[in-house]
């Protein structure tokens, strides 16, 4: 059945009247996503790509029985938009926006956690379930093929790179989740793994991490103790110098934890093979499946 997003997911797009929202709502519709409504406060009554626009999430949800939200509103207003989606009971809430202030991120994540809502992102390409032809985000849908591998990643294009490699090798995906490139994001790798663990369609996992934080280390520990299905990992930033920021706000190395070496060691300890190159992911999967 895939995780978080399936054929019954009914999506609203917050910030649909902006250029990003307009462009990607069209792309989502084209892919097959059930985009039922858009929200831009003050533009209620308009229409974008044939989708009706409302002034508030609550109105859009009530009119269209929506279940999930994708947020494209600019960074200064993204936190407020996410809190609005949480308050309206949408789940998951996918925050595409980058450059969201970290205090806003923490507030949103904490509030969502208290209410049992899954936040994906911020700064994420989104989430896609190829088997249901549903994508909530900005990823190119055609690189993802339906299948049995659960993919989770902190990167965007690197994920497409790896997914494309899998597709070329004939390996499909149940659901791919962009966890988001910011230091503070909602859904963590461990939480994502737990979701995949309960999904009968998922029979292997790919975890694409990068330097910074200890989310991968925690995931490795969890995998070691709780996961029996095959898992392959990839870590970007092996050659990043300590302390240098490499674009993703998440990629600072703090202290000795968070280095690529520490993460690779953790996966090795959990008997999870770590691909040297993006293209190795598909090869390793082939061996294990």
């Amino acid at each position, binding site marked *: 059945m895939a995780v978080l997003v399936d054929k019954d997911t009914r999506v609203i797009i917050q910030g649909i009247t902006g250029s990003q929202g307009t462009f990607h709502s069209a792309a989502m519709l084209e892919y097959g996503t059930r985009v039922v409504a858009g929200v831009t406060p003050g533009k209620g009554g308009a229409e974008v790509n044939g989708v009706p626009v409302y002034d508030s999430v609550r109105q859009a949800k009530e009119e269209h029985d929506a279940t999930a939200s994708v947020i494209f509103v600019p*960074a*200064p207003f993204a936190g407020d938009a996410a809190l609005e989606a949480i308050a309206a009971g949408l789940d998951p809430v996918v925050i595409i926006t980058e*450059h*969201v*202030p*970290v*205090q*806003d*991120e*923490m*507030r949103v*994540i*904490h509030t969502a956690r208290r209410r049992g809502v899954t936040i994906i992102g911020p700064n994420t*390409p989104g989430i896609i379930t190829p088997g249901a032809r549903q994508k909530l985000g*900005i*990823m*190119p849908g055609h*690189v993802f093929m339906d299948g049995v591998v659960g993919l989770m990643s*902190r*990167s*965007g*294009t*690197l994920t*497409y*790179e790896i997914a*494309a490699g899998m597709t070329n090798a004939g390996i499909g995906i149940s659901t791919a989740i962009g966890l988001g*490139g910011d*230091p*503070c*994001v909602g859904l963590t790798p461990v939480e994502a793994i737990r979701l995949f663990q309960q999904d009968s369609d998922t029979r292997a996992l790919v975890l694409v991490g*990068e*330097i*910074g*934080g*200890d*989310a991968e280390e*925690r995931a490795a520990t969890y995998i070691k103790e709780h996961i029996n299905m095959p898992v392959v990992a*990839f870590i*970007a*930033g*092996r*050659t*990043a*110098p300590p302390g*240098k*920021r*490499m*674009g*993703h*706000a*998440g*990629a*600072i190395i*703090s*202290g*000795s934890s968070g280095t690529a070496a520490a993460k690779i060691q953790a996966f090795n300890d959990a008997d999870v093979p770590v691909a*040297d*190159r*993006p*293209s190795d992911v598909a090869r390793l999967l082939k061996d294990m499946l």
Partner: protein
Amino acid sequence: MRNMKLFEHEAKEIFRKFAIPTPPSGVARTPDEARERAAEIGRPVVVKAQVLTGKRGKAGGVRFADTPERAASVAEQILAMRINDLPVETVLVEEKLNIRQEIYVGITVDRNERKYVVIGSAAGGMSIEELAEESPEKIIKRYVDPDLGLQPFEAREIAIAMGFRGKQIHGLASFFVKLWRIVTQYDVELTEINPLILTEDGRFLAADARLNIDDNALYRHKDLVEALRRAPVEQNERERLAAEHDMAYVELDGDIACICNGAGLTMATLDAVALHGGRASTFLDLGGGADAKRVEKGIEIAMMYPKVKAILVNIMGGITRCDEVAKGIVSAREDGDVKVPLVIRMVGTNEEEGQRILQEAGIPFLKTMEEAAAKVVELVKEAA
């Protein structure tokens, strides 16, 4: 996390607004000014280089002076220094304290817990990272409830856990409470006082001050940015240009510039170059949806760095269209910007059209990251 770092003297100005005790001090840009500041203070002083980097003490950027004359002469020495490749443009002249104890206090974002964490140690004066490694038991850490914020009782509990008793509990706790107000008011990502001094006569004073503000929240603090009368971050010309165009740009010690779309892919490209025995000079992330002009600008910025001996463009087309990328590359080459070998790998959206444009311009391209990485390393070796 990207952030705007404040100089010690800037941070202390904010500290004083929030009634955090600091020693008497003044900023000087010349030895004469340093003499004046020291004379105003009227007691032995310490002269400290104002640079946005750690370890300035080990580098000789912190010196004591018993007289105004001596302050002028050490200021002259310090103002002539470069610390971690950064010039020292100002010094802070500050009263020298009678130290009973050096303490560490700080508040920062814990990315794993997605909460602020308050950190304190009675063993201050060294970097918290070293302390954490050598004596983790001496570090007190408390997460802040995102709903309530740091409460005074928690600040006292930390002071108690750090080993303080009696009135000192209140004295030290007030630092945490005030730092917390600064953190919430200014979107602070990291603030530290190291050392926080307990003087012989029992006062607590902030002898140093670090304050880093979340870049993403600077739009909420225009007054502050204006008051500082300087750019948010110290940058060279290339870094400034990249930031202006909202590209992520980092300079490294190698000779291959990697220009990609997406931070993870860029890092993976650097790694692939290393796997094939090469070394990257440049991390340049064009971001999502780059058009021809943006690609051209990225190549232009990369070429400004003298170490660059080859360029690897690696594009995974999603929102970014390969035809636009190809146009940008062609345009950059036509403008004469590209004076080194250029290796292109691009796949995804409008891949065929992009390939056609490159072919027409006579620019070869490759289909996989591995091939491209191998190729660029080979070209650099050939050139050497």
